[in-house]
């Protein structure tokens, strides 16, 4: 059982990469990935919350009474989410406007609560940090990749710069919510193909 820091970190990048393998946290995955920048911003915000809440929950895991553990987890997670919200408003206001309601919604993101319940409440602080970082970075990469795909196909830009030149007719379906589902499905399909070999 004794896994190392690296093992716990690496598993979040492929084996348990959140939107594709665990299929958790789909709401922000579909909602904010209209551009790569938004996807990465959202991923980093979630990573911060995930790591901080994992640390605190792992530290307090023997103090928190089992019957009210979910309530305690939610208080801890909500606190860090508001921290992120305030910091984003203070320093990256345009990103805050772009992500909008999805920032406060990190509170109910099942990845964060899921890792708290499934991992941090049973493991020590060091492993919990590794788990939080791994899952968070995996989530960021997944959101970034999906965002890049949708941005390139849907608006013909990459990080705001034009890719195909002015003659490209944007395939705007990809930017809409149904298009997000299709893109996610295609990426899941590719991941499964790669994994099955």
């Amino acid at each position: 059982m004794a896994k190392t820091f690296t093992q716990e970190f690496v598993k979040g990048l492929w084996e348990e990469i959140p939107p594709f393998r665990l299929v958790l946290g789909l709401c922000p995955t579909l909602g904010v990935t209209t551009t790569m920048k938004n996807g990465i911003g959202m991923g980093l915000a979630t990573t911060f919350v995930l790591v901080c809440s994992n640390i605190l929950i792992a530290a307090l895991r023997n103090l928190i009474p089992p019957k009210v553990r979910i309530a305690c987890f939610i208080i801890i997670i909500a606190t860090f989410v508001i921290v992120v919200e305030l910091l984003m408003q203070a320093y990256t206001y345009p990103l805050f406007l772009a992500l909008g309601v999805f920032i406060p919604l990190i509170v109910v993101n099942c990845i964060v609560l899921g890792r708290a319940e499934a991992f941090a409440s049973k493991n020590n602080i060091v492993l919990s940090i590794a788990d939080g970082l791994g899952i968070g970075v995996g989530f960021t990469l997944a959101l970034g990749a999906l965002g890049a795909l949708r941005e390139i196909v849907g608006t013909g830009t990459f990080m705001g710069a034009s890719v195909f030149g002015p003659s490209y007719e944007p395939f705007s379906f990809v930017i809409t919510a149904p298009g997000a589902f299709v893109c996610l499905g295609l990426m899941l399909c590719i991941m499964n193909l790669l994994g099955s070999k």
Partner: protein
Amino acid sequence: MREMIKMVVVLTVLSAFSGGLLAGLRSSTAAQIENQKLQFVKGPAIKEILEGASNDPIADRFKIKDGKTEISFFVGKFDGKASTVAFESFGKGFGGDIGLMVGVNLADDAIIGVGVTTHSETPGLGARAKEDAKFTSQFKGLSMAVPIKVTTDGGKVNALSGATITSRAVCAAASDAGKTYQQLKPQIAEKLKEFNK
């Protein structure tokens, strides 16, 4: 019984700690958040209204207390004279408060331009108040001395089709700005002298 006391104590301590942390963070980021809002939310509206001003209206601002609330005034210099100010006023719209930035020329008490800053109106209907320049340009040149109304209420402003409540709210915000302006005009003129030095 012991378990219950433990639950209550843990939850209380956790909540109190979280509350304290957030209150501290909120007050320490408040100034920075205000700056960001000025730059990204009010900034574009102010720049549009005071277009062609030789100074930076966001940097050249002053505050006047009106009752309990403090209003920020942004100064626009034209031809080397600080004779115009822009300030924000609010009206009750369909989905909540609508913020309206109103620019006034002190020489003739006439509106030089308005722009919607914040709103939660329906996209495509009320939200056009922010996007439709034809609508907001109707306010140009209107006097601050008389209440501003939509045509159906006997005023001069053509309402946005399908968004009468929003249009009324914008007019109410402008009229309200007029009242504030009448009340505070001596103070505004006094403050403007400092910028004319």
